[in-house]
């Protein structure tokens, strides 16, 4: 199943990322995972946080443009070829990857991978048929 991620538009200028993070900290929102896609002019800050609703409200109040969308979060074996076997599942079905970012947690031996795919429905179907471990909201809270 898919998990909701939030994305924030940040202009490429001093202090903007810090401002966004500050806003979240003030609301006691915990950041589970984070990635930045950037161009020379702006970046897209993608976050998995503890409370999307609260995060969006606080960020928008501070003038940020925020979007919520679905991603898939997977646990892959933290070993060589670990990610590859997962990607193969999508490859076989011809599903394109938009982006991914990964992190590790001290609470598990597995690497956690956040993915956005071109066709999320098909991707979830493909994963359900495979033996790849998909994490849900509760799994993430416990990381």
């Amino acid at each position, binding site marked *: 199943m898919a998990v909701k991620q939030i994305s924030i538009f940040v202009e490429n200028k001093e202090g903007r990322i810090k401002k966004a993070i500050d806003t979240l900290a003030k609301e006691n929102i915990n950041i589970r995972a984070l990635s930045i896609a950037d161009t020379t002019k702006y970046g897209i800050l*993608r976050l998995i946080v503890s409370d999307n609703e609260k995060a969006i409200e606080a960020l928008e109040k501070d003038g940020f443009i925020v979007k919520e969308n679905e991603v898939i979060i997977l646990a892959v074996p933290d070993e060589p070829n670990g990610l590859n076997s997962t990607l193969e599942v999508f490859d076989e079905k011809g599903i394109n990857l938009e982006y991914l970012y990964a992190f590790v947690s001290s609470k598990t031996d597995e690497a956690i991978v956040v993915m*956005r795919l071109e066709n999320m429905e098909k991707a979830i179907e493909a994963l359900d048929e495979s033996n790849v471990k998909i994490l849900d909201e509760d799994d993430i809270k416990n990381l």
Partner: protein
Amino acid sequence: MFWNEKAECMEKEEKEKLQLERLQETVKLAYENVEFYKKRFDEIGLKPEDIKTLKDIEKIPFTTKSDLREAYPLGLLAVPREEIVEVHASSGTTGKPTVTAYTQNDLDIWGECIARGLKMAGAEKDYIIQNAYGYGLFTGGFGIHHGGNSMGAITIPISAGNTQRQLDTMVDFQSDILTCTPSYAMYLGESREKAGIPLEDINLKAGIHGAEMWTDEMRKRIEVSLGIKTHNIYGLTEVMGPGVAQECDFQNGMHIQDDHFYPEIINSETGETLGYGEKGELVLTSLTKTGMPILRFRTKDLTSLIADKCECGRTTVRMTRITGRSDDMLKIKGVMVFPSQIEKALLKVSGISPNYMIHVTRPDILDEVEVKVEATKELFSDEMKEMERVEKQIQASIRSETGLRVDVSIVEPETLPRSEGKAVRVIDERNFD
């Protein structure tokens, strides 16, 4: 040395006497034959005979570009149609173009003004003038052409573009003078270097460049890359075309052909006439044209006037390099652009906030335009390729509206300055001083 020494080196008193006579004739001609001027005069109870001194010109209402547009195409003729032999028009990017119509005598005057400029650039009757201004409705190509003919020089009507052919022509014909826009001269110079044509193989001596704003930096580059001395030329379709003013070898202001055009500088806000040396908007009145005489035309070009006699010996009033426009029209890469066009283009893209900013710079020699647009929830996406698609869409929309390729930057909401009343939409950081 001079094409017309009598006119170009005339003493002040004699010049003013001549100007007044010609002004009175022009005013009479316009009042009696052009409905528009008659109406304007009658509205304020002004009669042609009220113009008794040159100073009285200040009583005459200004003529603007929109007045000319309303008269499109031939509403301002002061002579019967059969006397008109040629017309030219401005590009008309923002609506109806403005048209100027010429009698044979008007063309002869145009030719005379250009010939004076060619002579300033050192031309002689046996000189070859490579005229790389565009031929067409634009006044550049034909204006120089008429001048070349008036002088009796050899004019090659090569028009703009086809760089290889331009270079071949320079080498094969050993052209003496190049006439084109400064940016094209710049490009030709660079192309010569790239093509590996040694300077010794070309014979250019001078260049006459205008129709767009340019800097000293550009001048230096053109002069070095083509081995020439350059002469800034000024003019505008509404008044005649190029040749209203041009620099001599001393490159210290452009000599206004003030026996044919009477210059004034005004405060563009109040309309008040300013003195020599003061910077303001140039206002021009034609003194000899009969096809479409023009009274106190507001050029919107910002400059100042120099009254002193030039080192070259000419006594004509000079105008300094144009440093800007008094209205919000932008001339970018030679193309006229109004912020409203950009706004229109932006509004065609869905999800765009009406807050935008146009940033014009000239980091090197070419103009660059950055259009900043505030992000909105609708246009923001977590996917980079989607963001890029939006930027491209905005770019394409601006391009189809203005013809310009611009850099689009999406910025955070509420970050572009808001102002009370008329918003500041344009930051022009090009330095023309």
